[in-house]
């Protein structure tokens, strides 16, 4: 199945801005982030850059819904889902 990713803020340099990822059926947010980390050559398990996947600081949205309101990193993805990865940003 295909899932589209959009990345913002200071993770763009590490992960790129937009891409479409192929995942096996039943793939979760956790599977997806492991795949992203692997392709980007990141080695810290369960982290994207300095941010813990499923932690409080990194906002991961599936079709606009924060994963904390779904099943966290165990949230199962479907074909056509849009995942947004949003590090905390400063405005002002």
């Amino acid at each position, binding site marked *: 199945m295909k899932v589209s990713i959009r990345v*913002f803020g200071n993770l763009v340099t590490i992960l790129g801005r937009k891409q479409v990822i192929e995942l096996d059926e039943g793939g979760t947010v956790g599977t997806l982030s492991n795949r992203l980390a692997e392709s980007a050559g990141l080695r810290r398990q369960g982290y994207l850059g300095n941010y813990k996947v499923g932690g409080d*600081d990194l*906002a991961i949205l599936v079709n606009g*819904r924060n994963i904390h*309101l779904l099943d966290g990193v165990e949230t199962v993805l479907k074909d056509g889902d849009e995942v947004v990865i*949003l590090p*905390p940003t*400063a*405005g002002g």
Partner: protein
Amino acid sequence: MSRGYAGKFLEVDLTKEAARDITFSDSVLEAYFGGRGLAAKILWDRIGEKWPKVDPLGPDNIFLALTGPMTAIYPGARICCSGKSPLSNGTVGSTASTEFASELKMAGYDGVVVTGKASNPVYILVTDEGGEIRDASHMWGRLGEDTIRILNREVTEELTKRKPNIGLWREPGIIYIGPAGENLVRTAAVMTKICHAAGYGGYGAVMGSKNLKAIVAKGRGKMPEVDAPEAVKLLWKEVHRHLIEESNFRRMGTGYAGYMVGADTSSEPIRNWQEEWHDEKRYGGPSFETRYWVKKYWADFNCTTSCMKISCIKSGRWKGDITDMPDYELEAYCGTNLGIFDPGDNIHISAVIDNLGHSGINGPNTMGFAAELYQRGILTKDDLGFELKWGDAEAFEKLAWLIAKREKIGDVLAEGTFRAALKIGKMKGVDVMPYAVHVKGIEVGAHGTRSDADYTHDISYAASVQGGDHTSVAVDGYTEMSSAVFTDSAVICNFCFFWVPRSLVFDFAKAVTGFPITMERWRKEHGPRIVTLQRALLLMGGPDTKWRPTEDDDNPPRFYEPLPSGPHKGKTTDRELVEKKRSTYFETLGWDEKGVPTKETLQKLGLADLEPTMRNLRK
């Protein structure tokens, strides 16, 4: 007994010329915290279903200046100003960094609630003896810098007469308005410390409508008790350790962004947002830093970050102008948005704006709007009394004065961009709303959504209860509940918050207040409670306008035009994405498909008394 709070608020009725102490229950304080949250609660409790009829510039509006339990204890002391906004007809929690907040707490007060209207210009003095209403007719009409000088001298003389000083005298804290607020310019700011402002919401005009020139606080007492003093000391050291490491931000503040937001993220307002990209290297941070910044590390009370700078123009036609940095927002709005790419000119306009008591974002948004209308031949030299060409700092200075004094077309522009667009449309028989860059009456902050390379996107402004306020954008109805909604209610500075691990901040909050606070509770309960209350008040709106649910939960028309230049040329805000994310946002917060809070949600959040009015909106 709640900790972190001084324990009482000052209520001043300017019509009756009376001041008295009031308190709120621990359960209210725990549910709404302070600042933005508590202000919305107080406003709803006191005004209730009469809300749509209350004129924000009339005597029935309430002006609030509130701290929160963490103010002056956690780094970065701020005051939160609120009331019914003359721009959105809802509420905004509009904050400014100032010792007014710490002085207020040391005077034994958590905030000031001002009702009614004075028959003559007055100021309120708050000390540990209580609140006094004093004559301000000798200050009415004065610019910001003069106002501070007069009040500082007058209050210092008076208070040292009453009680002799021990040790070094600390200046009183002052929030005040300039001519813009006095003349009810709808976008006028509440000013403090010459160049700090509570800008969003138009609360300077609310003060002006009450003939309230200033509020002065002088505290001679201790800071309030905290619940777990040893824990707070340790946590403060941890927070300080995180903040002291931000040496880059300390050095540059946001003062390098005048170039970077244009060149890198292509999201800076240029000539009323007709463009968002530029590569003017003469507008780079170094031009400001090396030529103009005379004091480089300046902080307000209990602030580690110390990112403010003072600019001074030492020669040339603007010699003597003094202002802070300017920060990014004013580099953009008092600069590139007006077609100005000269740092000296930008500093000058910022200083003029500050002295007049305009909001540095909202005021120049209207000025840029006027300049585009001039560019298109809709406004003419006759309307203005002078020519208004992009980049002409002298002309924009004249325009700032024209609006502050409500002269000629300035009287219409003083209504804020949205209302001015309606009026000018009627006057000239031309629809000028496509050029108005606002969301629900509140002019948009200097971060565009078209490039998607900045932190602002599709629903950031469109779904926000505070309209174009860039400091409090909508994300997903969950994440943002523990950022701006929290800091505006705790009342602390965002720049002492962003780089601190959230768990540390919330542990601090718990150690200060003793309330069972966690970040998750703020994201699921407290934040949604405050934002849902704000949403309800916003939808009630009135008296001059009510926002159409969903339709007005949208970006300005300009944000759907393709970017004309730069590396993101051709890109624009994705309308389909806005609609999709907006409905998810409403759903996440427990609002219906029109964004009206549902009965279940109101019940769950302890807002059941809003049901009758919300029921009417659901039809």
